[in-house]
């Protein structure tokens, strides 16, 4: 019975999220009126969280370089470090790390802000005033994070490659010229559809999708919150947990879609 109840709740939750996504996309023509809100959310979420992405991205690049570099050095292939760091960052680590940070920062604040509105009757007030809460609350958040995620991913990729270069030079004694040449060469593989390096656009596409998932999961957790401060805490926790799960699952399927031979 407990399993059945959980399964029904899960289906209800996913149904609500799909409906919310479609409802938000249908309201995109209203975006012009919401640019001020989008800019506010972008500033609060992306600009104020920039240092976290940069710091984590730097260390991730350093870790990847160190982990792979030691093994490559053993077989005398350390000139490949640049290739491995660049591809890992662009394809996988950049979007994944950036969006995990965004899930924990922007996603949690979406759930907490909207959840607090739900438990303090503010959402009921919007309903009573016949104000469309998706237009007012969800649309600007979805657009802001979908802009923020790829932009921050580019920065995370870049600083990660830089961090890897630092480790390659200082600890593995690979010349920075060699490192950056191999990194640039690795990302040169063009895509079929766009004149952009495939690994770069694949990573940016991923982060855009992850951004949409974070916004929809965060906003729907907030909209469905009930039961005072405890309910807001529960919604915030669920938003971060579910966003990270969704990012990982979506990551596999996007990778499979883009890279299957």
């Amino acid at each position, binding site marked *: 019975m407990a399993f059945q109840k959980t399964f029904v709740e899960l289906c209800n939750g996913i149904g609500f999220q799909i409906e919310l996504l479609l409802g938000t996309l249908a309201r995109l023509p209203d975006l012009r009126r919401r640019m001020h809100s989008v800019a506010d959310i972008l500033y609060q979420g992306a600009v104020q969280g920039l240092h976290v992405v940069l710091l984590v991205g730097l260390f991730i690049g350093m870790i990847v370089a160190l982990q792979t570099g030691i093994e490559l050095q053993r077989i005398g292939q350390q000139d490949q470090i640049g290739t491995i760091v660049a591809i890992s960052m662009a394809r996988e680590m950049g979007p994944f790390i950036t969006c995990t940070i965004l899930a924990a920062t922007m996603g949690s604040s979406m759930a907490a802000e909207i959840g607090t509105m739900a438990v303090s009757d503010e959402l009921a007030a919007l309903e009573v005033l*016949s104000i469309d809460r998706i237009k007012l609350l969800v649309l600007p958040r979805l657009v802001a994070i979908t802009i923020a995620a790829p932009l921050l991913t580019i920065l995370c990729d870049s600083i990660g490659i830089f961090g890897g270069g630092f480790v390659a030079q200082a600890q593995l004694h690979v010349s920075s010229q060699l490192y950056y040449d191999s990194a640039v060469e690795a990302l040169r593989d063009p895509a079929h559809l766009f004149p952009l390096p495939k690994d770069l656009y694949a990573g940016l596409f991923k982060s855009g999708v992850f951004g949409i998932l974070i916004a929809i999961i965060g906003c729907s957790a907030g909209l469905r919150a009930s039961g005072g401060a405890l309910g807001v805490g529960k919604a915030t926790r669920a938003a971060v947990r579910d966003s990270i799960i969704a990012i990982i699952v979506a990551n596999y399927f996007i990778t499979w879609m883009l890279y299957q031979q």
Partner: protein
Amino acid sequence: MSPDTTERETVIRFRDVHKSFGSQHVLNGLSFEVRRGECLAVMGPSGTGKSVVLRHVIGLLKPDSGAVEVEGSEVSQLARKELSALRRRMGFLFQEGALINWLSVGDNVALPLRENTSMPEPEIRAKVLEKLALVRIPDAWDKMPSEISGGMKKRVGLARALITDPEIVLYDEPNAGLDPEISHSINELIRDVQRELHVTSVVVEHRVRCIKTVADRVLFLEQGRALLDLPPKEFFASDHPRLRQFLGVDPD
């Protein structure tokens, strides 16, 4: 006060309304009517479904059985657009004001006009200032909800409820959390709004002083049903044992 309200048309009608939340039966066959221009006070112990009554009127809740009619339409049967249109004719003052916490006082009051109408900004501004003056806070535009007192939040909430010039205004415990002095000024404000704008009002409240100031009729709820429905003078003079017991422990 309006002594002739019995001859006016019915604006709100509850017919044998039942509502449960899980195993808790909150409304148990509630029936009453509110006529145009009248101010009905709904009184009763906590947990008897007073706020639930208001939420049925504005369509935030649907009855399990029975019917809630507003302006001749059954609220739970209305399509989304019709319900929106009906809600625009109603104002609702929430217990804590329910102001949007990231918008200033002025922007809170302006929100329904900005979102739902194509009114030019200068006209919106003028209308908001008019409503802020009506609730006696003409200079509060730039204040944020976190910076203002409970009484002021209720005034802003009332200004926002009145911004669309509603014909029906619903008040959910307007005195809750306020000291006697501020409560008195809010009660006078409700009475003045009633007199100046000729609206139909339902006030959920258990403070005697508030009811004596604003009500034309008092409905006493007990276990989800109407136990008494009388004008204030007769209501407070009634020797009904349950009412005497309730008023005996009332702080007012």
